[in-house]
């Protein structure tokens, strides 16, 4: 179970999982992500990245500027595929205005 504490809430990775990746050589947030999958879940690392950066500091003396962040990619929020798959309509018809 996860007595030692979850770090990545989405993928349910524990501190031990992260530390194992660091012991195997991961030295950046991206490398930890690739090795463990931390940050590959639904929220895309929004919660755990900073924690991982801290653990990298504690376990391997990596400074946050070196640990970096994993690459941001589109979309910023989960995007329903049925909303993407329709033919792209032009902007004109849809516009909300606050009254």
């Amino acid at each position: 179970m996860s007595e030692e504490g979850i770090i990545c809430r989405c993928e349910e990775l524990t501190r031990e999982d992260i530390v194992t990746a660091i012991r195997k050589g991961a030295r950046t947030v991206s490398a930890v992500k690739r090795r463990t999958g931390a940050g590959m879940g639904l929220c895309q690392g929004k919660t755990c990245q900073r924690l991982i950066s801290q653990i990298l500091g504690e376990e391997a003396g990596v400074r946050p500027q070196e640990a970096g962040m994993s690459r941001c990619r589109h979309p910023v929020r989960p995007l329903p595929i049925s909303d993407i798959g329709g033919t792209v309509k032009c902007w004109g018809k849809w516009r909300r205005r606050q009254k």
Partner: protein
Amino acid sequence: MEYELAIVGAGPAGLSASIEAAKAGVKVAVIDENAKPGGQLFKQIHKFFGSKEHRAGVRGIDIGAQLLNEAKDSGVDILLNTTVWGIFDNVLAVHSSNKIQRLEAQRILIATGASENTLAFPGWTLPGVLGAGAAQTMVNLHRVAIGDRVLMVGSGNVGLIVSYQLMQAGAEVVAVVEFLPQIGGYWVHASKITRLGIPILTSHTIKEVTGDGKVEVATVGKVDSNYQIVSGTERNFDVDAVCIAVGLSPAAELAWMCGCEFMYIPELGGHVPVYNEDMETTVPGVYVAGDVAGVEEAATAMIDGAIAGLAAAESLGYLDHNEYEDLKRGKRVSREVFELSRFRFRRMAKERFANKEGRLKQWSKT
């Protein structure tokens, strides 16, 4: 449809920018994923400090309403329930009403604010452990109680303010724990909650939260100089909610996507985009303002936003250089005044706080 300036985020920074730019004649859209504009302002039911021209003494919710009216009067288009899910060069990819669309803009201002940091301790994933900002959203915006007995972790301004607001909303805050030897936030905020009898436990941290499917007991302990819990100092609180208030980080995903250069500045909340005096990032035409440019306060966000709005207007040709400099100087001067007052305030607060420390220490012993 195209806009000359598209602003992502209808918080204090975004709205201030939209007002300045629209006043100069720029065709502006402010886009926000929420149903209500105003960003975090609508959760801030406390009065603000700072100088008068920055709406000191006014509650955040009222500032929000003022900015919103001003923006509407200036002819700004406010697109709500609209998520900007990406930026591709000068195209904002938006998602709204069950479709995705392109919104072209000549200038882009990213004013997406900040997101809460967290602390990972055993049990932090239990229902009932949540961000302090999250608690504020639930309580002040949605008007639902997140718990009857709450433990607050972190005594920065957010932790203190939210503790007070939870009390206002009828909850009982059992304690505020702070792992540093001193309180992080302003004295005014701290004194407000200590006056209510809420202990602020400095040099304490949360050890774990336990419960069956929900928060039941929170264990805190005193920390030594290495911030490790001293065994035997643990004590339990029967609570049904734990709020985490351990700072904010810029929510700068969109700036990353634009290819902006970043710097790590811990004082500003971590990785922040690099920007110049005009709030323009290293990507021409892309501006940042507010917490995304470094976590500060709503007043700073409003100044940032105003400057970014003016800068965008100038670069689009709506203001000539002298006009821009004049207007910006106005903002900048007041910014200096503001910084100064805040600095003075901080020092003052520290001194006053020092006198109160004895009292606070007493609490931390109980």
